Every structure is written in structure tokens, then in C-alpha cells.
């Protein structure tokens, strides 16, 4: 059966709900270093990185860690004594951001995500590697990138390190909707064991 037969969305190994299960993987640090730096920054910092580098996932994981350590954590809102987590500082206008900072003075902490530095002291710069992409592909599908006739380096480079869009390309391959960017992989012949 060829890859063009495709699988239904509910069986696609790269479906959104499965991708959301992936947790953040550090490239060259870890939780101890991150939490120590957060303390050193007075519990205020920014997770900075390009799209698809894991900012939101890391923010969620950080929230869970802080909760487990007994802290009160609030996503998006501000409450005295709680740590506020805000995903996407860029979505606020300058005026909204200043107001948000004023309101967050009474918070026990403030961590935001942003594509660029400058909102708060940088807590960590998120980045990915071909190895992380390959591990994500393996976790989702039980195959490494080579199983889809593409090297992790090739796929990672084609998407500028954006894990999300790279996995969406593989979604399309499994669905039998090969995107223009993966025609090379199509020519090389993609083994298909996902077709129902």
C-alpha cells in the first residue's frame, strides 16, 4: 500500500493531540539550571525563542514544576502571591504590557514567552536540534526520520528548526497529502505502514 492512500486524522501518528503530549527537551541545560536562574532573577524572566522551538511547552512544564513545588500558578491572569505565566507577550500592545507589569507587581513571579528578548530578563533561549526532531518523530510514530525517507538534518533545516511545522509535514505525508517541500522525499519513496 502506498503512502498516497493515507490514514484518517484520528489515526495519523502526527495528529495534534499526540504532538501536544511531547514535553520540552533541553539542548544544553536542565531543570536545575533553569529553576536556579529563575530564582536568581527574582522569579521574573522570559522564555525566548523562535516559533516551534518549544516555548509554550516549556512554559507549561515550568508551571507544572512550580505547582508541584507548592507554588500557586496562574496562566494569563494576575493574582497576589501567585506566579503568573503568560504565553506570547507580543500579543499585548505596549500599553497593555505596561499595565500588565503594573498589575503583576504583587505576583510572586512572572514568566512570559516571547519570540524576541526585551520583555523581561531572558530566562532561557529555546532552540531545537535535528536530534530533538528525530526523537519527536520516533515518539510519535515509532520510526525515525529515515523511516519517512528524510534525514533529521534535512527536515530540520527545511523548517528552520521549527519542530511543529516539520511534524506537520510528516502529518501530510501520512495523510497522503505530500506538501511541495517534501517532494524529494516522495520521489525517494516513503514506506507506508500507517495506512489503514
Amino acid at each position, binding site marked *: 500500500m502506498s503512502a498516497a492512500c493515507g490514514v*484518517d*486524522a484520528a489515526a*495519523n501518528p502526527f495528529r495534534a493531540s499526540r504532538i501536544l503530549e511531547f514535553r520540552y527537551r533541553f539542548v544544553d541545560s536542565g531543570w536545575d539550571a533553569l529553576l536556579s536562574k529563575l530564582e536568581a532573577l527574582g522569579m521574573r524572566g522570559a522564555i525566548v525563542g523562535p516559533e516551534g522551538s518549544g516555548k509554550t511547552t516549556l512554559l507549561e512544564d515550568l508551571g507544572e514544576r512550580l505547582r508541584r513545588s507548592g507554588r500557586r500558578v496562574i496562566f494569563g491572569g494576575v493574582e497576589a502571591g501567585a506566579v503568573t505565566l503568560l504565553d506570547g507577550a507580543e500579543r499585548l500592545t505596549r500599553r497593555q504590557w505596561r499595565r500588565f507589569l503594573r498589575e503583576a507587581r504583587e505576583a510572586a513571579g512572572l514568566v512570559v514567552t516571547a519570540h524576541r528578548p526585551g520583555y523581561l530578563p531572558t530566562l532561557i533561549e529555546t532552540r531545537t536540534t535535528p536530534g530533538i526532531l528525530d526523537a519527536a518523530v520516533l515518539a510519535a510514530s515509532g520510526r525515525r526520520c529515515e523511516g519517512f525517507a528524510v534525514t533529521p538534518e534535512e527536515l530540520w533545516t527545511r523548517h528552520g528548526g521549527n519542530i511543529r511545522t516539520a511534524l*506537520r509535514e510528516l502529518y501530510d505525508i501520512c495523510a497522503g497529502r505530500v506538501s511541495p517541500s517534501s517532494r524529494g522525499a516522495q520521489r525517494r519513496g516513503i514506506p507506508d505502514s500507517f495506512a489503514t
Partner: protein
Amino acid sequence: MSEISVLLQDRKLAYRPGETVRGTAYWTLGGQPESVEVRLFWRTEGKGSTDTEIAASRTFQNPARTDRRDFELVLPAGPYSYAGKLIAILWSVEVIAEPGSEAEHQDIVVSPSGEPVRPAPLPETPK
């Protein structure tokens, strides 16, 4: 260790829109529950962001740590279960206990035919 299960009447797994879903929820929890609820909901699955909506729910009064309760929930007119390549719509009956959000669900199909609706094949392009 907690155990939750949901058994639908006559083990029926395919329903028509507007039909009543009847079943029994069973549970043995690690501690006294604050609440146990049965929900009838649909969710999307696929390439993009997911969406979900609870169509009907029922909260069981005074649930015991080990208990069983019958339930009836009425399905709305839609959406129908759908099995496309870009998106799927999946229906489930879920029993969820708090605290801890321990849950178990049973997938069902909701459509006039008893099968998920599938996209019509595209007409062949003339050569």
C-alpha cells in the same frame, strides 16, 4: 489504585443524532470523591489545533468511593462523527472524578448511518 469504567447499555457504540445514550458508570477511587460526572462530548483531531465541546453532562450526587450509577444523556443534532484525513470529529462518553481528574471514556459514533461520515472522493481530473 483507582478504577473507573463506563459501560453503555447493550454495549451500543453507534447512535443517531438526538438519540439517548444510556449506560452505567462504575468506579473505585483511591479516596472519597468530591464529584463524579459523566460527560457526552466531541473533539476534533487532526493537523491543526484541537477543539472540544461538552454536549451534555450529569453530576452524580453524593458519590461514594466505590459506586455505580446509571445515566442517560441526550445527543444533540450534531456534529456527526467524521473521519477525514485533515480532520476527524470524535464523540465520547467520559466519566471523570475529582479531585485528580481521574477519567475513563468510551468512544461512540454519532451519525444517521451509524458510521462516521467520510469525505466524498474527489472526481478524477480529466487527462
